[in-house]
């Protein structure tokens, strides 16, 4: 979230799309209800299903699963056509006025630079026109045909209300009604918050779904405002923390990039990763990249990381390709992986195409499962009737189960969706031999290190020289880890303006990432978390909920990254002169000599408005990007069909089959072959979660099992009638990858839509069942889902694919 949970109460309009906040985030959803009750806010829901969020909404509009960009592109077109944008904001705080390379083109559904063989883009033309001074050029009148504003206008001129309705199935009047609600918040003192989750991410164009809404929020001037922002509601209690700490192959803690094969040495790496200033006077905060990276390396390797050895850069693995979930299991499926440590994850149930995942696991030599529960994955080899048909004699994989403590049995920190890091204390000891995850991993590490010390190896240094300063090497304390992540001064840290003045004494905890240095005098496991455990102690344990602003900012509750800032880009909540757009919801303001107010300013505190330091401090230009060349699949989001589409073509480009689905999405050969076609699988299927369960955990809990005991699929009344299915009947749902059986719930809540002149029915399937647990045994829903992911994040397309259904 750019904003935070409590801030939802400050919105004038709460939009729920690409998510189902009431069911997936019932506790946080209280703030949406608060906005309704106390602020008279309106709540609107756009979803393929009439969800429990829709049950308490003021307005609901249906949309076909997988067509969100068409819908939101239509909203952009509506806002531009009806002049419902926040002009001053757009002109000053976005790149609307920036001039783009005249060779940039969009033609036949493809942006310039496409390579069909590699399914990717050469982005050379997706660039700003640069002046002689090296800075990006602007046309402040925004009339130049090559300026972002005009290019955007042209791009979305195709997204007319009629076209939107044709592609999404949303009735035109419903679409226009939603546009009216949204357009109202273009007023400088009105805000919309958008609550989304996996309903946007789990598509082959997931990142672009979110970007389209980000563009809308920029056009409306809702970023940086209280009650505004782009708000990703994260999954379990610490998935935000996982993302920040980076459990991804391609990144390092704090959203730094993992070195790759094209960055063979430290100098190349730092040069490539440090962005250039694109406009004068901007903060360009990533220019501090080397400070964050060197501090991380010092935290990894301590005294062994020196200036002379480039802070041990050579010991870092240089990745040679993709290591995301889909890439990992594809490699495993090809027999290229020997062992797999699976910690806190149930991939047999939660990754697409269960058969492929099961077959892949059967090619391992060993599988180590670290989990509090006996997961389905840990028994992938074991027959469980028709729910898991497998011949164990053909599975050579040796499986180890290491019981871990559950979250309530561990002390540590959680980072919630609003980036607030909160310490928690364990409520009970774990049962039997279960241990904290950190103890399990540390014990493994120490054992491996001893083996390397004894037996040597090809490159033992990265293991042997790893800094391991814990009192009990087998059992690092959560407090030790948190202090290490925060970072400390290894030598005295000096004021850059006065080299004689010590600002942090050697040995002290750092108070802020601004104190980090790239000369080896500081360490820190994640620059974004710096400040959470300063000399003042563990700030994440703070529980002072006083809220003098009344906005719910509670700056002394826990610690929010970065720098305890609660609303990101909050400089944009003020006009160019530093005056809040809405004085009643002042986040910060220019007081005459500094920025101050009800939040930690997202701005150099003494940057006077006439210095023109722009609010989006992480970009080299200081403004937000309506045109975003960083995306893999286009600087403007474009509608592409899901890889399994009910209409066989992209209505925006009916004559170009190459762009039916995202042309930049990665597809593996054997997966392309098992995509189903509409003639065999005519119905759109979407998978989701129910409020009664949490992923695949709570099927092990009796209370949850009582609330939703048995697997079911939901279909609309019209489809039920066509197929002769009555409420409560047993049905079989098939995709081109397998089938599941479940009870049919026939409902008015799943509408039949008219898409491209054709009736499209939707089948909805909650994911929570499996063959392990105390609920009635069920099929793994991901038996059905396709093995393809988003072009940017590789998040699988769980939300839109094709199935058929029949009564058993």
């Amino acid at each position, binding site marked *: 979230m750019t904003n935070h949970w409590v801030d939802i109460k400050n919105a004038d309009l709460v939009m729920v799309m690409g998510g189902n906040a009431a*069911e997936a985030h*019932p506790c946080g959803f*209280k703030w949406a*209800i608060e906005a309704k009750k106390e602020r008279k806010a309106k709540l609107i829901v756009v979803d393929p299903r009439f969800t429990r969020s829709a049950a308490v909404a003021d307005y609901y509009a249906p949309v076909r699963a997988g067509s969100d960009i068409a819908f939101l592109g239509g909203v952009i077109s509506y806002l531009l056509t009806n002049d419902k944008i926040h002009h001053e904001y757009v002109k000053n705080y976005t790149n609307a006025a920036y001039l783009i390379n005249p060779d940039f083109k969009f033609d036949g559904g493809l942006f310039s630079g496409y390579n069909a063989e590699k399914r990717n883009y050469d982005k050379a033309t997706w660039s700003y026109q640069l002046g002689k001074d090296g800075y990006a050029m602007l046309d402040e009148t925004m009339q130049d045909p090559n300026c972002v504003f005009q290019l955007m206008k042209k791009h979305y001129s195709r997204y007319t209300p009629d076209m939107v309705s044709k592609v999404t199935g949303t009735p035109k009047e419903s679409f226009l009604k939603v546009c009216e609600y949204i357009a109202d918040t273009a007023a400088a003192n009105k805000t919309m918050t958008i609550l989304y989750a996996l309903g946007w991410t789990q598509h082959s164009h997931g990142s672009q779904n979110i970007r389209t809404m980000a563009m809308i929020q920029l056009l409306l001037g809702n970023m940086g405002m209280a009650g505004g922002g782009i708000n990703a509601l994260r999954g379990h209690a610490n998935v935000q923390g996982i993302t920040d700490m980076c459990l991804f192959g391609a990144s390092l803690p704090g959203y730094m990039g993992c070195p790759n094969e094209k960055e063979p040495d430290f100098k190349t790496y730092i040069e490539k990763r440090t962005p250039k200033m694109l406009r004068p006077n901007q903060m360009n905060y990533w220019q501090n990249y080397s400070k964050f990276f060197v501090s991380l390396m010092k935290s990894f390797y301590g005294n062994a990381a020196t200036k002379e050895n480039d802070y041990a850069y050579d010991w870092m693995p240089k990745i040679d390709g993709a290591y995301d979930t889909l890439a990992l299991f594809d490699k495993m499926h090809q027999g290229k992986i020997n062992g797999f440590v699976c910690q806190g994850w149930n991939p047999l149930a939660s990754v697409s195409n269960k058969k492929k995942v099961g077959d892949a696991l059967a090619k391992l030599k060993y599988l180590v499962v670290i989990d509090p529960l006996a997961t389905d994955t840990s028994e992938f080899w074991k027959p469980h009737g028709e729910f898991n048909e497998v011949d164990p004699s053909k599975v050579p994989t040796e499986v180890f189960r290491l019981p871990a403590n559950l979250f309530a049995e561990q002390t540590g920190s959680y980072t919630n969706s609003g980036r607030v890091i909160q310490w928690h204390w364990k409520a009970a000891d774990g049962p039997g031999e279960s241990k904290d995850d950190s103890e399990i991993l540390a014990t493994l590490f120490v054992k491996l290190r001893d083996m390397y010390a004894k037996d040597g190896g090809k490159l033992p240094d990265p293991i042997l020289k790893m800094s391991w300063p814990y009192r009990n090497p087998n059992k690092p304390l959560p407090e030790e880890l948190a202090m290490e992540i925060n970072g400390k001064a290894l030598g005295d840290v000096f004021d850059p303006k006065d080299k004689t003045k010590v600002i942090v004494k050697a040995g002290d905890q750092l108070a802020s990432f601004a104190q980090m240095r790239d000369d080896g005098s500081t360490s820190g496991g994640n620059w974004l978390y710096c400040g959470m455990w300063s000399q003042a102690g563990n700030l994440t344990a703070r529980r002072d909920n006083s809220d003098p602003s009344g906005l719910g900012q509670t700056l002394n509750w826990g610690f929010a990254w970065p720098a305890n800032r609660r609303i990101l880009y909050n400089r944009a909540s003020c006009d160019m002169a530093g005056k809040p757009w809405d004085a009643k919801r002042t986040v910060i303001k220019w007081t005459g000599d500094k920025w101050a107010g009800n939040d930690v300013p997202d701005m150099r505190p003494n940057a006077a408005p006439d210095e023109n330091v722009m609010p989006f401090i992480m970009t080299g230009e200081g403004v937000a990007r309506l045109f975003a060349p960083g995306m893999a699949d286009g600087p403007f989001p474009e509608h592409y069909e899901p890889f399994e589409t009910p209409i066989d073509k992209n209505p925006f480009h009916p004559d170009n089959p190459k762009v039916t689905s995202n042309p930049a999405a990665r597809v593996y050969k054997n997966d392309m072959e098992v995509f189903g076609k509409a003639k065999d699988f005519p119905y759109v299927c979407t998978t989701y979660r129910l409020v009664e369960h949490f992923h695949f955990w709570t099927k092990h809990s009796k*209370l949850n099992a*009582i609330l939703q005991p*048995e697997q079911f699929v939901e279909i609309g009344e019209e489809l039920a009638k066509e197929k002769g299915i009555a409420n409560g*009947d047993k049905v079989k749902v098939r995709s081109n990858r397998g089938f599941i059986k479940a009870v049919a*719930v026939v409902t008015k809540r799943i509408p039949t839509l008219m898409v491209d002149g054709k009736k499209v029915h939707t089948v909805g399937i909650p994911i929570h069942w499996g063959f392990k647990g105390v609920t009635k045994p069920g099929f793994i829903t991901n038996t059905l889902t396709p093995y393809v992911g988003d072009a940017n994040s590789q998040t699988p397309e769980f939300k839109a694919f094709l199935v058929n259904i029949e009564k058993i």
Partner: protein
Amino acid sequence: MALQSLDIARRSATTTPAPGVRQTTEVAKLIDVSTCIGCKACQVACMEWNDIRDEVGSNVGVYDNPADLTPKSWTVMRYAEVEEKGKLEWLIRKDGCMHCADPGCLKACPAPGAIIQYANGIVDFHQENCIGCGYCVTGCPFNIPRISQEDSKAYKCTLCSDRVAVGQAPACAKVCPTGAIQFGSKEQMKDYAAKRVVDLKSRGYDKAGLYDPAGVGGTHVMYVLHHADRPELYKGLPNDPGISPLVSLWKGLAKPVATVAMAAVALGSLFHYVMKGPNEVSKELEDELEKEDAK
């Protein structure tokens, strides 16, 4: 439940006057259907606080689970899909005991002290006195009490009388994430409801209102409804609930003849025979009662 005898206002099949020196505030639980998201946290809280676990059932084609109230499920969510003015609405109502000011169950109950009404308005079952006759089921206009097959006792929501007695809100109200379940004095709850009704009317629900039916003297569990003119839309919430005339007959005659144990028991048996047919267990219990009364 422990007997909080000073706070007892009424006791089933009892003619002695209630204690009257202590003043208590009338309480109420307000369920704002318009902000309920149907998450069932209230069901979990009820199971946890009261240490009851129902069976892991089956899906019968709806979200309602358990599918109905049982001796081990004292509250359930009921989901109704209705189309109003061409617009779909998913009306989600938490069902359970309404804690009537004029409780049909208590009036119908022949077992002394099996059903209690506290001065704060809570209607509670004291299972140690329950004879399992099922009259409370007949007497209830909301179809709430359930007789256990395991121990032949009647069960229902206690409004967490044990929590309320020590100044706590009922478990369901405490856990409700959206504040759809509110708890306080009946007056406070009516004031709160009035504000919610104003909000709902401003959003186009012209017939929004409070459900506090007069036919049972008002209730200590009330609903804010978007369509207060048609409570039946909410999975059969009674439009104008009242106590069965048979119960009134029982009550009207029972008082004058209460001292004549034989007659009372005879009438009880007749009433039971009319409503339920012969019941071996119940008969035995009634015989026991008769012996006790004769002492």
